[in-house]
């Protein structure tokens, strides 16, 4: 029972990380109509920049806090140099150009930081366990990810639903040309939204770093999962991205944690432990196929 609870918390933690990534993706698609494959590169850059800054400042919190404006800046620059020219193009051009950006960033990281992966240590003040229920211990760092992730999700919900910027974002998502005609500075809005997405991606990358590792291409696999999430949730819908991220997080973790034992009842244990991660990945894609057959525009997507 405790084991199940801990695994479910791990699922929530993974889901929140993926939500941070998916939120930026779904915003840029909903508002700018932009397919950004290079979003995972921002996740990777966030982690690498944090690794450097943590080394320089010798403090996890300070380094992480400095890495956020740095990824914002990177996002704004990428938007101004490349993305801005892509908004009016069709999806194929966007796929091609942002695929080029992925290659560029992966090689840039290899040239600057070297081919070997880096690791970020769990900060000392979080390197213990907390008792979430009597007798149930959970690593404090993972718990901190859940807290920060949930706070950022709430912040985003508040930002989108309650502020003027959020109002413009929602207006932009439903009719881009109209808000431009109404005198809103669309270029600035797009830059801000893209930068915001970059910060969320960078935050997810640097928070994930101590529990996985900082390596080239780290953003690519999780990016595909993030795309699956926004497709399940409905492109442009933050609520959909949140629901789908939670579901996918649970499937992934619970699949990894419990499938091996289940498979071992009828196959060899080596085969079971190598097949289980594959099967839990497959389950996620089966879920997506099922949702799309049932609702071709995702759970919370706009009907066309």
């Amino acid at each position, binding site marked *: 029972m405790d084991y199940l609870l801990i695994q479910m918390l791990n699922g929530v933690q993974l889901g929140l990380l993926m939500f941070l990534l998916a939120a930026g993706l779904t915003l840029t698609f909903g508002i700018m109509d932009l397919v950004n494959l290079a979003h995972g590169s921002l996740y990777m850059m966030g982690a690498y920049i944090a690794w450097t800054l943590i080394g320089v400042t010798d403090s996890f919190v300070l380094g992480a806090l400095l890495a956020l404006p740095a990824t914002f800046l990177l996002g704004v620059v990428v938007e101004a140099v490349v993305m801005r020219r892509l908004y009016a193009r069709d999806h194929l*051009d966007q796929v*091609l150009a942002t695929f*080029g950006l992925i*290659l*560029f960033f992966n090689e840039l990281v290899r040239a600057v930081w070297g081919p070997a992966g880096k690791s970020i240590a769990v900060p000392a003040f979080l390197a213990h366990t907390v008792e979430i229920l009597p007798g149930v211990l959970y690593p404090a760092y993972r718990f901190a990810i859940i807290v920060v992730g949930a706070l950022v999700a709430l912040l985003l919900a508040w930002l989108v639903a309650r502020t003027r910027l959020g109002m413009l974002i929602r207006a932009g998502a439903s009719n881009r040309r109209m808000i431009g005609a109404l005198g809103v500075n669309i270029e600035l809005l797009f830059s801000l939204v893209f930068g915001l997405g970059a910060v969320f991606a960078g935050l997810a990358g640097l928070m994930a770093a101590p529990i996985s590792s900082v390596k080239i291409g780290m953003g690519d696999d999780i990016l595909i999962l993030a795309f699956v999430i926004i*497709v399940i949730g409905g*492109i442009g819908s933050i609520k959909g991205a949140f629901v789908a991220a939670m579901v996918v997080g649970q499937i992934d973790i619970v699949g990894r944690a419990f499938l091996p034992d289940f498979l071992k009842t009828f196959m060899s244990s080596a085969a079971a432990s190598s097949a289980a991660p594959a099967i839990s990945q497959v389950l996620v894609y089966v879920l*997506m*196929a099922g949702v799309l057959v049932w609702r071709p525009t995702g759970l919370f997507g706009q009907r066309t």
Partner: protein
Amino acid sequence: MIAALRTPRGLATAAILLVLAVLPLLTQAFDQRYLLSVGTRIVIWSIAAISLNMILGYGGLVSFGHAVFFGIGGYAVGILSANGLQSGWLQWPVAIAASVLWAALVGALSLRTRGLYFIMITLAFAQLVFYVSAGLEAYGADDGLNISRSRFPGLIDLRDKASFYWLCFVLLLGTLWFCSRFANSRFGFVLRGAKSNDQRMMALGFPVFRYRLAAFILSGAFGGLSGILLANEGAYVSPAMMSWVKSGDLIVIVVLGGMGTLFGPLYGTIAFFVLEESLKPLLDLARKGWGEYWQIVFGPMLVLIALYAKGGIDSLLGRRRG
């Protein structure tokens, strides 16, 4: 035929096909065995790119999972070979049938969706096969599987590099012939019509979904063929054959060469491989060790191609007739 040779496009195409036809003789004369293996891969990737062009170029369907057919064709050969079934007469039809089945399933589900949803669902299905192959403990899992080449006793020995190359080349010619018949048939015109306006085609009474599905399946069959050849080329299959980066490369090749043109995918593949093989030494020339990072240059080139060179190489060869 002679008139076609007078245009730059006709001349370039004839020259390329001529060089490809005699490539093994050239590489033997100049003792460049490595170039023959690059040439073989160019021919195989061209077949894959032509098959992607059938749906991407003529149909306007951005499939971001086409490399999955490298994997399905390759693994069908590899798994049969690992179980002692070496006959090409068995392996090849099974591999094509598997590709067709998978294309039918994925097409039937994904063609219900549009735009970004279609891009992502094709990518996701390709990832699904990728993860399944990486989980196949009995067939090498992540590390892949060494196989022995398909056997066609008394007909051809695929272990001989030159014979294998010529087989691939003949299959490339066959694929080009099929694609030209396909593109200029009524079927091809319905598909192209649906690309520019599918609502209108439906209003005219064409069952667009069925046409697209048929094209998707045809494309998958030729994709599977390229997978069979790729597995035989290296005598090796692995999940990396169908990583999503390879699907991206295939899209790059088709756009680079010129979408919806017969020879575009061929130009694109050659340009892609030549760029890869020449950027490395060029950068190494600028400063030793830089060649390793050739994608730092190649990535921004893709951005520029997407922004400014949509017609691809084909459009550089002059305006199209008709």
